[in-house]
């Protein structure tokens, strides 16, 4: 077998001996009794083959994982794209447009207002049946977008929403309490009574997932774990409700001003304080209703206050808002 140790200047006899020396064909005694070159060569070949096999296996596994990862990424992007396909151009900036109203709601109160078109009989009732996005929170949370988002996260469909849609017959405890119980009932029950109302938080949580930056995070993901987290985030996101919230025509804002210092506080935290309520036409960019009303749980019976103080006050507030709108006529 030719060898690189042989040069063209070597005589054929020497070349043959060099080849024999390299190939171990001379049958000469070896000082390495247990490791002949042939055995060593086989051992090295086995080692190399083993290493190559391991490397190939690792590469193939990694490649398979990478392909699965890319498939996962593609499917996730496809899912996002499918959801995005249902959006309109106006939906993309909806959350920002809604949130732009919140600092104003938390600013200096501009006085009660009921636009003329809302003073018509049944106009407020019809308004609250339109697609609404709702947010309620303490006054201090409306100072900035970030804090308002915290308020939005804590803001649920409460008795104010239920009682605006389905107002009580009177501002008595007896009339309010069934509505309040309904508001305190199951989520499904509340949803049934107020299907047109969506929480602002749902839009704030869901809409970013359908935005290009979130898709860019999917594209930029390097680890399956990272992609899995994004998928979980997408799957858990209330996208349909987010879309519904983004497409709301009316923003319902309730701002709880600080209570009077030294007053009585109920077990659920409720106490006498002023609440600003505003209804804003998002499409027209116009405030339709703005008013400040005081809520006070003290008139309610001890038994009801213990469990429903906040609810009774909220439902009473809804009653007061509807009453004020009608009174402005």
């Amino acid at each position, binding site marked *: 077998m030719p060898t690189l*140790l042989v040069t063209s200047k070597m005589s054929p006899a020497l070349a043959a001996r*060099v080849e*024999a020396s390299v190939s171990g064909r001379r049958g*000469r005694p070896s000082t390495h009794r247990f490791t002949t070159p042939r055995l060593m060569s086989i051992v090295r070949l086995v080692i190399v083959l083993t290493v190559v096999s391991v490397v190939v296996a690792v590469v193939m596994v990694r490649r398979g994982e990478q392909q699965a990862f890319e498939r996962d990424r593609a499917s996730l992007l496809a899912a996002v794209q499918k959801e995005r396909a249902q959006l309109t151009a106006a939906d993309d900036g909806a959350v920002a447009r809604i949130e732009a109203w919140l600092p104003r709601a938390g600013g200096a109160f501009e006085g009660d207002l009921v636009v003329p078109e809302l003073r018509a009989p049944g106009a407020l009732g019809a308004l609250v049946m339109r697609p609404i996005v709702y947010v309620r929170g303490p006054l201090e949370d409306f100072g900035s977008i970030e804090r308002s988002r915290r308020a939005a996260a804590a803001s649920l469909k409460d008795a104010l929403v239920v009682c605006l849609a389905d107002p009580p017959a009177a501002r008595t405890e007896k009339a309010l309490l069934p509505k309040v119980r309904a508001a305190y009932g199951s989520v499904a029950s509340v949803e049934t009574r107020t299907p047109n109302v969506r929480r602002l938080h749902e839009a704030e949580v869901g809409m970013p997932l359908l935005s290009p930056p979130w898709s860019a995070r999917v594209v930029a993901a390097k680890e399956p774990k990272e992609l899995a987290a994004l998928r979980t985030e997408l799957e858990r996101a209330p996208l349909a409700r987010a879309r519904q919230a983004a497409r709301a025509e009316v923003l319902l804002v309730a701002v709880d001003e600080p209570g009077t210092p030294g007053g009585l506080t109920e077990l659920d935290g409720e106490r006498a304080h002023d609440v600003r309520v505003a209804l804003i036409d998002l499409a027209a960019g116009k405030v339709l209703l703005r008013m400040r009303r005081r809520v006070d749980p003290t008139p309610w019976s001890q038994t009801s206050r213990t469990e429903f103080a906040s609810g009774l006050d909220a439902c009473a507030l809804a009653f007061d808002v509807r009453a004020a709108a009608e009174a402005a006529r």
Partner: protein
Amino acid sequence: MHEPVLIPDLLHPVPQSRVDVEHTRLAMALAFASGVSGGLFAEALERATFAPSTWQPELFEHDLFVQNFVALSFKVKLGGGDALLATTHLVKLLTRPPSDPAIVAHRRGVAKELVESPALAEELGKLYGLVCRFRTLLEGATGVGKWDSNRRQLDILALVKEMIDAMAKGFAGARSGLSRLAEFGARVQASEPYRSLADLLRYDEQLATLNLKVSVGADGKIRGFQLMGIQEHTENPFVAGAARRWLAKLELFVRGYGFSDGEVMARLIDAVYDGIEDELVRIVQLTGDLELYLGALGFRERAQAAGLDVCLPELATAGSPRVLEGLWNPLLLAHGTAPVPCDVRTDRPDTTLLLTGPNSGGKTRLLQSLGLAQLLAQGGLFVPARVARLAPAPSLVVSLIQDTTADQAEGRLGMELIRIRALFERLPPGAMVLLDELCSGTNPSEGEEIFELVIRMLTRLRPQAFITTHFLAFAARLEQERKIEDLRFLQVQLGPSHEPTYQFVPGVAKTSLAGHAAARLGVTGDQLMALIERNIAAAARQAPTG
């Protein structure tokens, strides 16, 4: 057409391969690879074969102290001391003198030329020095050779080249069998393996030549180097480009070897050694030949230093007179005693010579001298005599020592008779026989009868017999009667005061001078009486008093 010399055999006119080539080649390869093979040369030589010989070493080797003679007399100077010779091989070689006269003549020719040409003798000594260095490096890795196998192997190959060159150059003018060394060296030098060997050694020593310009400052310190040129010896077949050398290392690694320059060199060394290997086996055989001649020269030098002569004897035909002038005993010289040369002449070699004379007169020493001289003469070497003319004998039988063993089945006479029986069982016609004090183990009258019988029977085989005896009256009667034709008589010559002169003259001694010997050794009546009186007095002093 002149046949190329394949074997540098100095012992035979027709070169012979005498070592076990396959066994020796294997042992050398193992030694070359591992550096562990102590005794490789000695073992190969001990297993060597010899030219056909009719001599049987067991018939004389012990009684002639051949082992002692070789060990003490065959010395080869090497460096500051004596070389360690393969004595067993030398003894075997000496005790089996070749039957073929041409072989003897061949050896005599070599010995003669070495004496006549001191330059050749010096070259032979140098060659032996190289062989010894080669043997030392091959048989035992020492120093750096233990750790750097390639260095050791390259050193060995360098010595191989030196030996070949020394043979080719040093013996170019030789006329005797020594010329075979030159022919062998020239043949190897012309062969491809030798050229590859030389190329490899040059490759090892001179891969390239750098031409440097060195700047030296005012303070004598080196300030800098400037490389003026690089000359790579590309004509050398072992030189390859850097990339090729690297790829060769990679190839060796794939083939199961190490990835290093040393591994590449190891493979090249192997290839070169493989080519020259057969010649190296011949050098093992040559070692034994060199030791024989250099040992003989050493024997000659030692003798001359002691004022003694040696010579290459004339090998006469059976009818010529035997002449040994200035014959001396090498064993005496070897043991530090100055031997006294003597002359021995007989009208024919094939006689039975009765030696008589006083005890300690040198009779036994003469027998030893005669035996060793015959041994060396038939081996083609120098004999311990100023002038010698000897007739070759087909065998040598020596009986000088009367050993007594604890388990011997017979008494002294019985053992002697057994010795005589054994002698006749193996004695061919014309053999040389050396017998000391035949039939001394019984009373003289009965012993003389057996003695006469033995002599009569011996003469029928026409031996070259030398027999000592103290049966003086019997010997004198045989001399007077002259009934046995081939019987000759030699006696120790005595000085004016009847002291032995260690010279020998014709005739039969009149006395054994036992009294002289007794007086010399303190066994006279007065001397014994003095000892007895001293012992009695000592016993009386030690006896309890009161």
